[in-house]
């Protein structure tokens, strides 16, 4: 039998992150599976190839800031922070259990978490504040805000979008996890977001559209600051539940409590994908 070929480093991070997300969704409380699986590549790109951060010095004043505005993807963030070394992955074992610091929505009690999130529409105003602070401090640090697409129905997002453009905050980059689904259906069937790129453009933002599961494309677009004088938004096309074919693109993936059989099936699929992508990667 041929030995599995080693995946690229970022791919390997993504694979481990997905396995941990599945483990948390197999806990007593379950978890926000779909929207956590969809942003794995976004967060891995940022935490492993873009953000100037140091897990050993998480409060360094000039660190880049990441705000997970779609706080319901907390388990995705936790898995990435553990992978990045902010805390041991074993800490996630008690996720959502009584006494655990790891609640479904992140709070700054977790090393590496900058702000509490979970109520939607808070992240971009915070990002404007972080970017304004960087400018006032004469610092080149950047701020990234990861938004859900359904979240864009919150009016405060657009208050901040207007302010960021008006203040010419080029240190601010928003990333939209455009998985196209919210709790009751497609975003376009609930409250239309399209033409989404045009909407951001008319608000004064530089718009990038990428495949949100293409690590190379993400690192490329997130790694370099956009044109001066304008905030940038990356519309990352993703698949809700990515990595688990039996829930991919399905509304029911939003929140899942995986039974033991589903968990074993999910882990088997992820392991198989890891081998395959590793071979393809080579």
């Amino acid at each position: 039998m041929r030995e599995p070929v080693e995946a690229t480093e970022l791919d390997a991070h993504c694979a481990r992150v997905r396995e941990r997300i599945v483990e948390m969704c197999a806990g007593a409380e379950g978890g926000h599976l779909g929207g956590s699986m969809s942003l794995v590549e976004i967060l891995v790109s940022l935490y492993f190839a873009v953000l100037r951060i140091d897990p050993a010095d998480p409060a360094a004043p000039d660190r880049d800031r990441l705000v997970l505005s779609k706080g319901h993807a907390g388990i995705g963030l936790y898995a990435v922070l553990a992978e990045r070394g902010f805390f041991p992955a074993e800490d996630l074992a008690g996720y959502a259990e009584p006494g655990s610091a790891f609640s479904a929505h992140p709070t700054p009690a977790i090393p590496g978490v900058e702000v509490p999130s979970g109520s939607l529409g808070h992240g971009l105003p915070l990002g404007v504040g972080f970017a304004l602070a960087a400018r006032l401090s004469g610092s080149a640090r950047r701020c990234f805000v990861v938004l859900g697409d359904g979240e864009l129905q919150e009016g405060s997002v657009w208050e901040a979008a207007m302010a960021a453009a008006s203040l010419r905050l080029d240190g601010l980059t928003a990333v939209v996890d455009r998985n196209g689904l919210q709790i009751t259906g497609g975003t376009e069937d609930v409250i239309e977001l399209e033409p989404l790129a045009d909407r951001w453009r008319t608000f004064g933002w530089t718009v990038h559209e990428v495949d949100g599961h293409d690590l190379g494309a993400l690192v490329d677009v997130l790694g370099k600051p956009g044109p001066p004088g304008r905030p940038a938004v990356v519309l990352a096309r993703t698949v809700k539940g990515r990595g688990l074919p039996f829930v991919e693109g399905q509304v029911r993936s939003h929140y899942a409590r995986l039974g033991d059989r589903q968990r074993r099936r999910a882990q088997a699929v992820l392991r198989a994908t890891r081998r395959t992508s590793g071979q393809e990667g080579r």
Partner: protein
Amino acid sequence: MSARACRDAYRDLVPELLAADARAVCLDSDTGLFAGIDFGGTAARYVNLGIAEQNLMGVAAGLAQSGFVPYVNTMAAFAATRALEAVKIDIALCGLPVRIMATHDGLAAGHLGPTHHSLEDLAVMRLLPGMTVLVPHAASAAEELIRQCADVPGPVYMRLGRKAAPEPPPGLEPLRLGRAQPLRDGGDVTIAATGPYPVLAALGAADLLAADGVQARVLNVHTVRPLDVQAILNGSPVVTVEEHWASGGLGSAVAEAAAELPDGPRVLRVAVPDAFVPGAGDQAYLVARAGITPEAVADRARRALGISAT
């Protein structure tokens, strides 16, 4: 006696605050309060974020997370209700040193009507863990409390009067954040008042009561949270006075504290009745119509003492 509004005292102090502390920033929501103010070399730290109060509070939180001390300007009604969730989650939950400077206190918006009245802000703000809630009664008190906020590590909500208020007479105990300020001594009944009009009504009531031989102690409760329970509940019956709905404000805070004492005193409240306040009228008119008057306060004090009204 010179009279100035608390709001104007704050406005005039901001350039000094920005100059004295490089961490201080002033975030505006197009209130117009700072029109014509020269910020000189600190102009970059005055930012008008337009008419968007949720964003305003979030931006303040992002700045405070980065080491700045934002002074945030909006009307009390918008700070306490429209932007409440951002105040709760982004600011209070993180214990950030944001100073929410809220104009148009109580019925100050007058003829602008119930959309702009703020009769719930003290209730809303005082229930947020870690929030300091301040209501200066005069311009000099506003200045003093703002300066003392330098020692407050967490968030502050300050309700700023819009109308000129008489300055207190000289010789009072110095104002100290967190301590009720005695304005007048008296052993029969305590009148605890917060804000410019209520303090005036309380002092007027004390005069009326004195004519009947009742000695009222008057406290200026500029700090609604943390409440100076020890000073307010000294054994005498208490009448609270506030330009706020009776539910949830100073009167409620005092009653809550009194209820937990083994032999807590009676607490009677003078406040805006439990109804929206429609119709035109300036603040003085609406405050009087709401029953925040020396006569009403004196009447409550007599009731608290079991004396029938004269």
